[in-house]
């Protein structure tokens, strides 16, 4: 378990403010945020590589804030992999073994296991310079995991890879975390990765934690316009609420639930809106009549803009669904939104 309490860091103009985080044992936790929000700094602080101004970091209830990095049991995998260029793949992986109080046979067993899981038996004698990005990433993972760290920190391990390799590495990452029984803390800015890999996540912005919670909770129930925009909730409208009605300019929507009177925003995920030619009345769906004003073709899906009065809704649809409906710009259609898709904050 990692517990970060009131952490403050000041590092040459850049700072982290009042970071509080709790990560359960053997959890896969994801840290998200825009470039420069302080994600890597937080990882390096947990690893003991940069000095902490105030606050505490504890692992398994032991305060490690002032312990040198080599005694923390916290592994780190960088985006650029940071393989030792003068050592072969095998030597890289075994680098940390002399510092572990384990028998040679145990080390060899661990090596064999990792080679198997990561499928790197054919590159053991190569030097890092001769490896592809994906291979380097696997070696860096093996090197970090062979010493059985209590926690493994991963700094955007997938973003330097070509898109086609990412899926493969994602699968490997998940398998590794499950088989190693290690707490993983990973930085990413890709929500797909977070969904696939993690249970819980935190969104960080300008050195502060904007929200923590289950990944799907962040995705469905952001607490601020920043997080809402960050998770791609493209329909974010300032709104006022009376009873179970939301008022967006000249548009009144019955959202089916009473809203706290402090809420000032109504938000709907673009894929939570369905388009139909006639209003759907089952399942509590709420129909709004509008006309299609724009299509954006993104290959697999369409981003559709629909005007309802003066409000423009963004809808995400699979291309085939739309083509099957035979609608075009200007078509009069109905937007169907189930009550659970309305989010207010």
């Amino acid at each position, binding site marked *: 378990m990692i517990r970060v309490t009131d952490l403050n860091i000041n590092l*040459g103009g850049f700072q982290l403010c009042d970071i509080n985080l709790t990560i359960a044992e053997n959890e896969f936790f994801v840290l998200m945020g825009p470039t420069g929000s302080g994600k890597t700094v937080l990882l*390096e602080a947990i*690893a*003991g*590589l940069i000095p902490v101004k105030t606050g505490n970091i504890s692992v398994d209830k032991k305060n490690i804030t002032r312990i*040198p*990095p*080599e*005694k*923390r049991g*916290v*592994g*780190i995998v*960088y985006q*650029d992999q*940071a393989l*030792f*260029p*003068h050592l072969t793949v095998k030597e890289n992986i075994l*680098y*940390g073994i002399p*510092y*572990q109080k384990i028998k040679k046979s145990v080390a060899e067993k661990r090596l064999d296991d990792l080679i198997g899981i990561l499928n790197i038996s054919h590159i053991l004698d190569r*030097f890092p*310079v*001769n490896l592809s990005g994906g291979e380097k990433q696997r070696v860096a993972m093996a*090197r*970090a995991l062979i*010493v059985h*760290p209590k926690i493994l920190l991963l700094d955007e391990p997938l973003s330097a890879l070509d898109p086609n390799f990412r899926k493969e590495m994602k699968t490997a990452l998940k398998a590794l975390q499950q088989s190693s029984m290690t707490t993983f803390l990973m930085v990413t800015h890709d929500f797909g990765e977070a969904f696939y890999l993690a249970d819980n996540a935190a969104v960080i912005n300008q050195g502060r934690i904007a929200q923590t919670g289950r990944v799907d909770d962040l995705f469905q129930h952001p607490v601020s316009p920043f997080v809402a925009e960050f998770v791609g909730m493209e329909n974010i409208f300032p709104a006022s609420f009376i009873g179970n009605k939301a008022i967006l300019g000249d548009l009144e929507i019955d959202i089916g639930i009473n809203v706290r009177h402090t809420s000032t925003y109504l938000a709907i995920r673009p894929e939570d809106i369905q388009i139909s030619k006639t209003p759907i009345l089952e399942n509590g769906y709420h129909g709004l009549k509008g006309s299609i004003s724009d299509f954006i073709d993104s290959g697999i899906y369409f981003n559709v803009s629909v005007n309802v009065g003066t409000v423009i809704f963004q809808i995400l649809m699979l291309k085939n669904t739309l083509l099957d409906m035979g609608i075009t710009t200007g078509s009069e259609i109905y937007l169907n939104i189930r009550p659970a898709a309305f989010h207010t904050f």
Partner: protein
Amino acid sequence: MKKKDPFFWVTISCGIIIMAFILLPLVEMMAAPSLPMLKKTICDKDVVRSIRLSIITAGSAALISFLLGTPLAYFLARNHFRGKRLIESIIDLPIVIPHPVVGIAILSVAGKNHWLGKILHELGIRIMGSVTGIIVVLIFVGMPFYVNCVKDGFERVSPRLENVSRSLGASMFSTFFRVTFRLAWRSMVIGFIMAMARAISEFGAVVIVAYHPMIAPVMIYERFAGFGLKYSQPVAVWLVSVCLILFLTVRILTLRKPATS
């Protein structure tokens, strides 16, 4: 098309002029003495002794630069702090101090009327006219070359490699020897040789502190002043040969950037 650009011809002409300017005198000097004369010179015990002394003193100076300069270079490569520029400036100072002034400055603290000189005298260490003095002068002129070269070498080793090493359980010492040193040893060798080459070429500072025992540049000067150009050239050829061997070693080390480093 590219080759017809006037820009290109200007650069090429300047290049050729500079190459000729550097090479012509050196080649001419190397070619001037006859073989029998070169042979006779190398059999001259005074010449051999002076060249040997030059190599030993310059080597010792470089060794001390290595011992003291390596930790400092590492410190400067890894830390950013107020006053870092000042320290770097002080390290570079010896490069711009006129050579005879270096000798005079060192004698200024080595005299018996200075506290440091007194201590040295009581310890039985002589600076003026001694091998020790020569080595002190050569450390002074060679140190900046060593520290700067090795600092660059350490800077090229990503701190992330050290971070990973430590997160795998290695102490700072262990990390230094297993990672940093292994990746930067080449620049340490280059720095050593550069400090030595700089030391072996020094004349003005040494001639102030110690005319005797005679290092090779002083010997060349004496031959020139006493017997003229023709008699100084063979000694110069032998000394330059030593320098060129050092220089080529550096170049070959710099050239070989193998895949593994």
